[in-house]
């Protein structure tokens, strides 16, 4: 087990606990709880094992649901985003992306923003669709998705700087 893996495991649990015990209790404007744990899926090595990230996403989601008494929305959303991550990467960075350590270095800012925002928005859309699970609540789903995505996006974007420092 090399240091990369150790760091990865450390990140996993740090983000999980941070999310479960801190960020889920923010209730900004009454309903906005940014989902910083998504950062783990986002910064996972872009050329990493896609099977592993699916499993990790699932574990992350289910642990978070168990810790925060969630119904299971985080599990499905995180699992799904981990599964479609390769497609989003290909869409954002082009077919021939060649950035081993991810978008931190060597990628254009707009590509990076596209990748981030797609990951965040799709994740939140799935999350709230599962939580509300009805067409009557489509307005609620979209509202929650929009606002929470916005704050998560900001938080993730800021945190990326921290990760970069740590990883270097």
């Amino acid at each position: 087990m090399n240091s990369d893996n150790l760091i990865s495991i450390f990140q996993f649990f740090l983000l999980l606990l941070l999310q479960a015990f801190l960020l889920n209790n923010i209730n900004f404007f009454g309903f906005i709880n940014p989902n910083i744990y998504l950062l783990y899926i986002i910064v996972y090595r872009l050329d990493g094992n896609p099977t592993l990230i699916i499993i990790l996403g699932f574990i992350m989601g289910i642990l978070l649901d168990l810790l925060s008494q969630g119904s299971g929305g985080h599990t499905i959303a995180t699992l799904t985003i981990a599964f479609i991550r390769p497609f989003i990467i290909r869409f954002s960075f082009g077919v021939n992306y060649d950035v081993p350590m991810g978008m931190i270095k060597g990628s254009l800012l707009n590509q990076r923003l596209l990748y981030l925002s797609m990951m965040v928005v799709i994740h939140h859309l799935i999350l709230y669709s599962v939580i509300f699970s009805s067409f009557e609540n489509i307005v609620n789903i979209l509202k929650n998705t929009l606002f929470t995505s916005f704050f998560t996006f900001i938080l993730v974007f800021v945190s990326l700087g921290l990760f970069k420092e740590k990883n270097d």
Partner: protein
Amino acid sequence: MRQLINALLKYKNTLLYLGLLIISLVFLNQRSFYHESIFSSVALTFSSKFNKAGKSVSSYLDLSNNNKKLIAENIKLKALELMDFTEKSDKVRVIDSFAFQVLGARIIKNSYNRARNYLIIDQGFKHGIETEMGVISSDGVVGIVNQVTADFSSVISILHRDLKINAGFKKNGAYGSLSWQGKHPKRMKLNDVSTLNPVMLGDTIVTGGMSDYFPQGIPIGKVFNFQKPEFEGYYDIDIELFSNLTQKEFVYILKNMKKGQLNKLKSE
């Protein structure tokens, strides 16, 4: 096999995703009443559609079983009906209580266009059929068992020129013997009815109680035409049968439980 493994490896992520998705849906279903209700309503919609389709197929395939059940039920009802006949009638002399056991059978072969017609039914001595048992249908008399094998029996149809059945008027009990002339499968003749008795067109003819084969009061037919010959003491009555013997499918066999006693009395 190798190709299968290759395909599995190729789609391992998708399969893994789907598997985990199912697990998480189960998880969701377990944890949230709201989602459980959504799942169950979706499941109900699907299952009811599938069940409906499956049900229509299975019910079609099950028709023969249903027929068997219905026959069994009809046997019971027929027994009750006959019991009712015999109980209501105060003219019962031979049988003072309902002494017939009813068995059901399906007609395998039926003839009606010869002078001497027979039927073959799918029950034999294995099932308790014996010779000289009466055979009736839901709406009339069919005939009398004359030969029995293990699985099948042959029945002399009432459309048989040599068979005579004791029959009488429902209204007053005047009786005669019913026979077939060999022409039309719905027409029979009732002979030996004394001209002392009044006869009207449309009078109902039922089985008389003097036969060992049938209980009294099973409807046979109605008077269709009659003549009163000048020099004879007996009517010449044409009967139209209630039942159409050319399209029968199920019959009931009547086993006279007290036949032994009757025969004993007769022979003494």
